[in-house]
């Protein structure tokens, strides 16, 4: 059952500095379908528009970010809506209880001059009024569940390590048991050991609360570890989408092929090859298929027409003229 459906979402950054206009096409006609009770991964390099996509899906749109078209429809059981049709007040109410967000820089999202306990109080009270004892039991229970010591509540953010702050933020984002959780690079700034803990935490939460997590990261290892389905993003568009196994075993899009091919494998000592060149700037995209300047299988059509995301069987979608003719 589809819990979130984005249709032809277009979100650009439009700015004007001293008379010079600049348009960054961060999210360019993106359509996605996310089910309940799954972990959905969005992969791509830095600067491909992943973070903007999250913001747009969440409805956090502040100038210079502008929505130019498309819908983002949520189906949360008792509530169904297009996130852009909600008023400020309504969208504020939706968050935390139904839709939550673990941002990219989780280490600095806690108010430095207040204790963790007070931060929790702020977030909870904004959505649900509760008495002191109810609050205490809720928070302590939740922390216990996530394996975090309750002493953390009395601390100030700067007294905790980066990994601890990350986990506290995850606890904060999930305390009201939201149905959809967006996680943007939740473990990027952490060392490998802590990374594992954080990713495991997310997996445990999902299994326990049976909700949906949309996980954005450039780290394919994380995708391989916990995601059920993955969408690959390139230059503001989703160019491939399939179950995790499928993507790793049978990548169809040339970019995805390079991506998977560049991952080191245990025992395989051959040279790793990555895609030549670098991703285009989102303010100045090439015509037709955005990948064509780097693609080894380029045809004439690729230079002029942009391929759309089509299903090629087995719930595997790809946006490539060549790939969609095969399989």
């Amino acid at each position: 059952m589809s819990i979130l459906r984005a249709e032809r979402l277009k979100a650009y950054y439009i700015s004007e500095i001293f008379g010079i206009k600049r348009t960054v096409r961060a999210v360019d006609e993106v359509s996605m379908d996310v089910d309940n009770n799954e972990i959905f991964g969005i992969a791509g390099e830095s600067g491909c528009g992943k973070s903007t996509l999250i913001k747009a899906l969440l409805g956090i749109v502040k100038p210079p970010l502008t929505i130019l078209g498309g819908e983002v429809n949520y189906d949360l059981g008792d509530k169904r809506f297009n996130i852009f049709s909600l008023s400020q007040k309504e969208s504020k109410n939706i968050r935390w209880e139904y839709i939550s967000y673990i941002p990219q820089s989780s280490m600095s999202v806690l108010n430095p001059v207040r204790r963790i306990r007070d931060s929790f109080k702020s977030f909870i009270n904004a959505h649900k009024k509760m008495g002191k004892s109810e609050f205490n039991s809720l928070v302590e229970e939740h922390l216990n569940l996530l394996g975090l010591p309750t002493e953390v509540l009395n601390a100030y953010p700067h007294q905790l390590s980066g990994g601890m702050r990350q986990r506290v933020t995850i606890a904060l984002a999930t305390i009201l048991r939201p149905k959809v959780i967006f996680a943007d690079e939740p473990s990027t700034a952490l060392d490998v050991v802590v990374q594992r803990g954080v990713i495991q935490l997310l997996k445990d939460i999902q299994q326990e609360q049976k909700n949906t997590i949309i996980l954005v990261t450039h780290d394919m290892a994380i995708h391989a570890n916990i995601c059920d389905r993955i969408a690959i993003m390139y230059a503001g568009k989703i160019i491939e989408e399939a179950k995790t196994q499928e993507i790793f075993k049978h990548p169809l899009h040339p970019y995805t092929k390079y991506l998977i091919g560049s991952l080191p494998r245990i025992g395989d000592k051959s040279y790793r090859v990555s895609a030549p060149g670098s991703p285009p700037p989102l303010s100045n995209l090439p015509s037709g298929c955005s990948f064509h300047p780097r693609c080894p299988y380029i045809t004439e059509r690729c230079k002029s027409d942009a391929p759309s995301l089509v299903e090629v069987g087995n719930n595997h979608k790809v946006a490539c003229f060549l790939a969609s003719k095969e399989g």
Partner: protein
Amino acid sequence: MFSTIRDLIKYDRRFTFGFSVILIMIFLAILSFFSPYDPKVWNVVPRDTPPSIKHLLGTTSMGQDVFWLATFAIRNSFELSIIAVLISRVIAIFLGLITGYKGGSLDRTLMTINDSFVILPLLPILILIASVIKGALNITNLGILLGIFGWAWDARVIRSQILSLREREFTYTAKLSGMKTLSIIVKEYLPFITPLIMATAMNNMLWVIGMEVTLAILGLSSLEIPTLGTMIHWAVNSQSLLLGIWWWILTPVFICILLFISLYMLSVSISEFLDPRTRLQRIEVMKG
């Protein structure tokens, strides 16, 4: 640089205002070279006459034309502030660069001394000094005096900028390529902080002219030299308010207010222009 000024004029009203007022002031200051009256001489024109065609802003109780006196006042105030600002810039840049770049105990010692000058209440001290060398405070000496005391705050500002520059990659690259310290400072940092120096210079100018006004009103600078401060001093001391000779006191006061507001607007708009974060804010306001 000219394109920057042109852009600022087009898009930032504060800059336009400040810039045009300063231009007018400079024009008036240059006008003083053509004055028909010698500002140091009294009783050249009939006293206490209100503004008229002959005397655009009236005359003072000492028989001087207010308008031409004012042009001298503006010019002298500019001269004074240029001297003071130049001296304090040199000291501030020197200190800021050295402490910012070297760090360590040199930094801490110099900064402690520097901060002492920030904390010290300069007015009583300047009054003390000025009253001791009362007679010799002409424009140049006053400029030097104020220059010697006005560097402390800006040295701090420059220092923190250098500190952040030091951690940037291009410093490491330059150092690893074998560039000598002095070379790095002059060739890499100086162009970076030039706009910052301009913004702080304007702030400093504000302070200098303000201090001059204060000292002059107390009667502590050379009172025959017409500056904005001495004009107010004479106007107040001759009871111009009570006698209803409003043009004499309102002229320097009004010029002061205009000058200060325009200098402040210039410095604010330049520093906002430089600060990349506020630049983003402006983009948000002008959303497409």
